[in-house]
């Protein structure tokens, strides 16, 4: 967040290259200046995922083991030292740390992120089972953020330094200053408890879940499944459950998009080509929505890469608030159960997801803006 703020303001609007998480890619691209095109850029950028993920895994693994092993953390005090030692030996936690580390890495290479201690589920299975719910929530939230952020940012840029601008900017700051779970609480109080319009929590009603069970090969997205079943009441069931979580998570990023669009738009509105369009008699509204908007949107794509990392963090809180059974909700559950094998596994998986999505965003940015890939 912080860096977004500084960056959005310091970067030249028309020259916002790959920023933030994609910094290594920038250096890699620069090293290849002159030779190679898009394909080469994508390949270099893809190979950079490996060190990033490896570093994170190493850091997280050793950090989690500094203080002890997961079994002592989960059961310490409840078992006698002898029993503890036996359990640790069974799970292989008495081996040298470096062996455990290599063992873990080898497991990850084979797609094995470990097995949770409390309910003996492979962590990879948690991903397939709950990852879809998180992805669905994040997609909704991005839509909400774009719908809120882009038009309001344009409005703020046009009303620069006037009351409308000030109000919108304070709104954007409020969106950032309000924790997701507090927004969730307020939304619940007003729309679920007060007005009774929307359900309090969950992804679907229990009756809807029964209907949903009939579908043959379900997608991770409830919305798609509901459309495929063609059941209107089921569709509303799914949508009504998603509205509040999507708004809570989307407001957070919407504020950032608003500021970003505003800053970049102010920059582009001062560009000579906008002036020349204005002198040709292009209307002011068309100037903002056409001429100045497109270049102002490029940084949004690059920042979106960083936002995905932030949204996954926000998803943990949103899912906990609304009992939306996704990865974040499970993470919080396992944290409460002090199952650190599961926590470590989910965190690692999220790291991989973040790295891959950053890569995808960089590729998209390179496709759109040739300056990025040099």
């Amino acid at each position, binding site marked *: 967040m912080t860096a977004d703020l500084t960056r959005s303001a310091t970067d030249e609007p028309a020259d916002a290259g790959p920023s933030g998480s994609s910094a290594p890619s920038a250096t890699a691209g620069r090293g290849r200046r002159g030779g190679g095109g898009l394909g080469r850029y994508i390949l270099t950028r893809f190979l950079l995922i490996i060190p990033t993920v490896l570093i994170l895994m190493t850091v997280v693994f050793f950090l989690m083991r500094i203080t002890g092993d997961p079994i002592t953390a989960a059961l310490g005090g409840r078992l006698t030292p002898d029993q503890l030692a036996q359990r640790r030996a069974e799970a292989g936690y008495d081996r040298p740390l470096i062996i455990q580390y290599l063992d873990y890495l080898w497991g990850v290479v084979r797609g094995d992120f470990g097995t949770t201690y409390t309910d003996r589920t492979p962590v990879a299975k948690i991903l397939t089972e709950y990852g879809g719910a998180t992805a669905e929530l994040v997609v909704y939230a991005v839509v909400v953020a774009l719908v809120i952020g882009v038009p309001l940012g344009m409005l703020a840029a046009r009303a620069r330094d006037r009351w409308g601008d000030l109000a919108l900017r304070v709104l954007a700051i409020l969106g950032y200053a309000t924790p997701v779970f507090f927004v969730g609480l307020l939304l619940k109080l007003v729309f679920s408890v007060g007005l009774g319009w929307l359900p309090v929590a969950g992804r679907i009603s229990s009756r809807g879940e029964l209907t949903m069970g009939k579908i043959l090969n379900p997608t991770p997205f409830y919305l798609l499944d509901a459309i495929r079943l063609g059941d209107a009441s089921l569709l509303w069931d799914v949508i009504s459950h998603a509205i509040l979580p999507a708004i809570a998570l989307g407001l957070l990023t919407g504020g950032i998009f608003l500021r970003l669009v505003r800053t970049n738009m102010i920059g582009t509105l001062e560009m000579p080509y906008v002036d020349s369009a204005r002198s040709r008699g292009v209307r002011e509204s068309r100037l903002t929505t056409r001429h100045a908007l497109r270049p102002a949107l490029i940084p949004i794509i690059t920042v979106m890469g960083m936002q995905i990392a932030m949204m996954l963090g*926000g998803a943990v809180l949103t899912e906990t608030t609304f009992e939306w059974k996704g990865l974040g909700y499970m993470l*919080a559950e396992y944290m409460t159960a002090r199952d650190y094998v599961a926590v470590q596994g989910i965190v690692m998986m999220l790291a991989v997801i973040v790295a891959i999505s950053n890569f995808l965003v960089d590729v998209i940015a390179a496709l759109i803006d040739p300056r990025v890939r040099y």
Partner: protein
Amino acid sequence: MTIPPPQPPGESASAQEGTELAAEAAVVSATARERWYLRLPIISHLRRSVGLQRGMLVAGLVLVLGLLATALFAPLLAPYGFAETSADGASFGTQQPPSGAHPLGTTVAGYDVLSRVIWGTRTAVAVMACAVVLSLFIGVALGLISGYVGGWLDRILVMLADAIYAFPSLLLAIVMSIVISGGQSSAGGGILAAAVSITVVFVPQYFRVIRAEVVRLKAEPFVEAAKVIGTGHRRIMGTHLLRNSTRTLPLIFTLNSSEAILTLAALGFLGFGIEPTSASEWGYDLNRAMADATSGIWWTGLFPGLAIVAAVLGVTLVGESINDLNDPRLRVRRKRRGGPAGTTSTEATA
């Protein structure tokens, strides 16, 4: 700086602008002679600001000062202790709606909401100060060394910082809090654990900023001159580089402070915060209030939440204003009117 800049003849508009530039130059040279405290980050920004920007800065400062004052005078302001469930032998009762005795009601555990909100400022300020100061020192030191020494050390540190930076900060804070406190939270330990967890998230930000500045400055003639006359590495780093690379620090400082409050609240909300009996923490209170909300009990969650919003809002407004005032593209000028493109467009659309 009293010589007016050359004026093209016959252009009254630019002539006027010329005199205004001269006036601005006089202001600039005057600021250089000002007393030191007037050149301190926030005070100089306050003096430079104008109009709506000043309004935002002042509003932010009022909120921040309010937060600090509340934290300082918490024992005087709070009607009860943060862990008190009874006074004069009479229990407060649980989930009582706001009343005369408890202006903001009581929680599910029977604490007085107002008192917990007030005591919570202490926790927030303590964690914020610890986290930001810690990450400032570590991040600046690492950035200086990495940028100055360069080589493989630099490459490794940059890679580490980038990897950590790309990681969702909340997850990192969760991992750190597991590491530090094993998920358990004692009295002062809880505050320190939260602060260190947040520090790890922030260090890469300071590192990146300072390192970038140092790499740029290292090639400047004055650094080379210092090297030529035989100045030691430590002195070059501590004097020549450090003093010239701190320009953007106040901004990151304020923005990080607000993020520290949010991360603390998020950790508390997920149950990794501080025990309710050892300190009052807003995120924890919100966690407990989630269940209340379903049954229509609004006061247990609303007020801690508003406290978080007010604290973060204050710090962010200050940071935001500093950002605008540092960036000439965003700064509202004191005098110039009817400038070129930018102003015309706003006037035409307003």
